């Protein structure tokens, strides 16, 4: 039978099932295969904080979304084109994301009486009209698997565990994907377990064959290669990229790498990655708590390591006092904060950008430190190198903000040539003659770094205020004023050593959308889409939050209206308004999820219809919340 083939620019597929159904696994495989096929890809793992929540429950649903295309892909997709739902609960939770006319592939085994009851369905949605707006493929995957394995001798227990792979096979058929990448992954993953390899590989092919032979599957979709610049690519999450960035930064600085860390969602993957890099001479300590994580790193920094601590919001709160110590002792240190929804324990597995104020000001005393933010998963690599460069050159702790979204989401990363990356020069004391621990480089104001083992430069430092130059403990009032101002001036001066903010679009005009951190993708797409409709919106993205790029004030001045979208209630907006005479319009969302570009488009469209600048009401800033709430 002839199948119809349709070409698409971009598609979003969402795999959903129980926590134990292996959805993250097949989502990752689908994403990798799309990358191999030359697409741009962006993913979004969306899983509960329970490890194995009771089967069939709404709160136990785990999902993995893959957005891929032949054009630039900057988000994990606003609407789902294809939903794979392994049970009733996962259909219930995810149906709202599926666009009208979208495809839904369900495993009917997950729709028995018990499952329907747990999902809160009074009637079976597969049998009533509730899915009328969608193209539904209802498949008894257990039964179909049995058929597929009729002539293959594999214990049925093994076969029945491969339902997720069978579903993946069907999805591969839908997009005419090659199976090779996943087969070779299966071979590697289950090396030595021949029957497990056989079960999975045959199940994958079985899923493909099922769709190929089934007359209901009439249409295949082709997503062509995107026009990425030539090079070697891999799929990478922000946490993986940060871990690699740290190893490369240490190499480029010719320093040993030390990570002191305590496990915390969603930052732990950096610790996992670094702990596997022993081959590279990397040392790590899984400390007894967050405070020991950072203070062990401070000890290692005193000893001459490129020292790092990784954490998320609650951990950052615990590290506050120690960050002050690193500021006072002027030691290089990288703090990676993979932000999550707070306050307190909050929504541990969900994303937010609400630690910005804590990163800026969350310390006692006048305690300035550079704050950087990565724009995407792959950008975590670049910004980690930047954090190391600034920390070592300026002798200061540096905060790198990422978040649960880009930390765990993946996108293709063009792998850099390590040789071509610039060296990083630590500010080591040249020799003992005239050495004092707080002598400063007149240009950068960085103090000299002398580490134990360097002869003739023995000195004592600590949290007490010190006399400038000598570093001797001092309570002199004028010296304290001078030191406070010096520390501020040092951080402010970094503005001369970072790139200017770049405006995409007209350099002056009515509306500038200014994003920071992980909102980059959604903001960029929203502006592109609106401009394609004939609007003129300019776009800029901040990676440096303290200090701001030198030209920020001037850029703000060039626009009638400046809009900042943030996954908080307006923290960057307030920072900018405090520094520049400009009223900023905020678009704010705190739902544990990243922005959809369509949400920003809607808000910006409202703004575009308003000619009177005073009519923008703060209450319309909040995405998804009715104005009259």
């Amino acid at each position, binding site marked *: 039978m002839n199948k119809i083939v349709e070409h698409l620019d971009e598609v979003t597929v969402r795999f959903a099932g129980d926590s134990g159904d292996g959805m993250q696994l097949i989502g990752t495989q689908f994403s990798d295969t799309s990358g191999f096929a030359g697409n741009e890809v962006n993913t979004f793992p969306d899983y509960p904080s329970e490890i194995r929540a009771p089967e069939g429950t709404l709160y136990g649903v785990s999902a993995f979304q893959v957005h891929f295309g032949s054009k630039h892909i900057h988000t994990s997709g606003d609407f789902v084109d294809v939903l794979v739902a392994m049970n009733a609960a996962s259909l219930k939770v995810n149906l709202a994301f599926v666009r009208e006319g979208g495809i839904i592939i369900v495993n009917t085994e997950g729709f028995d009486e018990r499952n329907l009851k747990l999902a809160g369905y009074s009637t079976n949605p597969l049998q009533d009209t509730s899915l009328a707006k969608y193209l539904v493929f209802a498949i008894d995957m257990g039964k179909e698997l049995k058929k597929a394995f009729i002539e293959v001798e594999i214990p049925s227990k093994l076969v029945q565990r491969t339902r997720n792979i069978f579903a993946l096979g069907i999805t591969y058929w839908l997009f005419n994907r090659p199976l090779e990448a996943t087969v070779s992954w299966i071979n590697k993953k289950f090396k030595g377990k021949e029957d497990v390899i056989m079960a999975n590989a045959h199940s994958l092919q079985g899923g493909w064959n099922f769709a190929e032979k089934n007359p209901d599957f009439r249409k295949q979709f082709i997503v062509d290669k995107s026009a990425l610049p030539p090079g070697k690519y891999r799929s990478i999450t922000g946490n993986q990229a940060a871990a690699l960035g740290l190893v490369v930064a240490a*190499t480029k600085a010719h320093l040993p790498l030390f990570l002191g860390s305590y496990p915390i969602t969603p930052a732990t993957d950096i610790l996992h990655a670094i702990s596997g890099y022993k081959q590279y001479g990397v040392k790590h300590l899984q400390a007894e708590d967050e405070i020991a994580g950072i203070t062990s790193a401070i000890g290692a920094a005193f000893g001459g390591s490129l020292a790092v601590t990784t954490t998320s919001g609650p951990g950052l709160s615990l590290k506050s006092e120690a960050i002050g110590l690193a500021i006072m002792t002027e030691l290089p240190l990288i703090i990676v904060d993979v932000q999550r929804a707070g306050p307190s324990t909050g929504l541990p597995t969900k994303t937010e950008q609400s630690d910005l104020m804590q990163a800026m000001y969350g310390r006692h005393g006048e305690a300035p430190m550079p704050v950087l933010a990565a724009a995407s998963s792959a950008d975590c690599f670049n910004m980690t190198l930047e954090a190391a460069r600034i920390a070592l050159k300026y002798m200061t702790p540096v905060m790198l903000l990422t978040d649960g979204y880009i930390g765990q989401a993946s996108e293709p990363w063009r792998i850099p040539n390590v040789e071509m990356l610039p060296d990083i020069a630590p500010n080591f004391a040249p020799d003992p003659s005239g050495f004092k621990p707080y002598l400063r480089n007149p240009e950068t104001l960085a103090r000299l770094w002398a580490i134990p083992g360097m002869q003739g430069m023995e000195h004592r430092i600590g949290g007490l205020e010190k006399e400038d130059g000598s570093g001797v403990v001092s309570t002199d009032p004028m010296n304290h004023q001078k030191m406070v101002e010096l520390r501020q001036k040092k951080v402010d001066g970094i503005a001369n050593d970072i790139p200017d903010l770049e405006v995409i679009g007209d350099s002056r005009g009515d509306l500038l959308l200014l994003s920071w951190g992980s909102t980059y993708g959604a903001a960029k797409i929203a502006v592109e889409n609106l401009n394609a409709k004939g609007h003129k919106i300019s776009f800029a993205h901040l990676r440096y939050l303290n200090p701001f790029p030198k030209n920020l004030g001037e850029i703000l001045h060039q626009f009638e209206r400046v809009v900042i979208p943030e996954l908080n209630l307006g923290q960057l907006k307030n920072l900018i308004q405090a520094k520049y005479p400009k009223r900023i319009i905020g678009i704010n969302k705190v739902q544990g999820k990243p922005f959809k570009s369509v949400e920003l488009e809607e808000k910006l469209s409202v703004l575009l219809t308003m000619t009177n600048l005073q009519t923008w009401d703060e209450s319309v800033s909040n995405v998804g919340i009715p104005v009259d709430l």
Partner: protein
Amino acid sequence: MAYRLTSKENNMKTIIDEILEKPHSGEGNYTSKDFKPDVDVRWCAGCGAISVLSPAQRLMPELGIPKEKIVFISGIGCSGRFPYYMDTYGFHGIHGRALPIASGLKIARPDLSVWVVTGDGDNMSIGGNHFIHACRRNVDMNVLMFNNEVYSLTKGQYSPTSHRGQITKSSPLGALDDPFNPVALALGASATFVARGHDKDRQQLQQLLLQAYQHKGFSFVEIYTNCRIFNDGAFDLYTNSDTREDHTIFLEHGKPLVFGKTKNKGIILDGYTPRVVNLEQGEHSVDDLLIHNEKDSTLAFILANMTYNEDLPRPMGVLQNLDRTPYEDRVVEQIQHEVEAKGIGNLESLLLGSSYWEI
């Protein structure tokens, strides 16, 4: 040992290796004066901490290591000032965190001799969690805990080693807490070297510090230090020359537990219970006495638990001294093992990961 890959030469050398390769200053040619920096000691006159400073300064030349390789680290409290008074590298940390700072340093730099000076508040209270984990982790460092059974720098509140009923500014009617027994806590947390000394016998103290240094792994020395201002005389019974012989027992490995001014008393074990016996009444001789064995953890606990028993002398000296590979050596072994198994890491293949594609 510090490893690092440089992308070109494919070896793991770092700047640290260059520093380590440079010639170092006169090993063994120091005097205690070389360890006295040009600053005034600002502890109160008669403070027990001063009595620890001079044994430490006298010990350093005997270690035979370059002084640029010695680091003193402290937390907050009167003890926290100690590093300023040693002309070595030094780091004055924040309250309770001296141990993780020292752990990070020693793990990163196993070539250094790392010393921690802390107090009963810094180490047992705000830093209590770090203390128990440092004990079990066994990073090679020497921890000198000044115990004055009171918070002094905050001007006189009860501490986690204050005794029940102790009158302080924050316990005018008497403290309700029971104290930690620091050596028992250290043993319970698997510290390999546990000792106790006091500020009135500097020679004995210097000897204990030397033994702590010689022990490879985590060494904990509790030091009774008198606070003249807020808890004067707290340890008189155990430290004054006219009473200490009868109220303390100095433990020596392989020797019987004899004490008393005229060496007329000893300790026997009655089941698991230590009892004092008189050696002059003919009933017991030295041969009956318990022999100290610093390699025996069970015995160490029995001895440590004599501490607050008023019928027994207070144990001083080395309670336990076990051999166990220090943490930082295991870190290096793991790295070496991985390098032997897989070769020195290649940065390019690390970046490529397990699956990549070309466009």
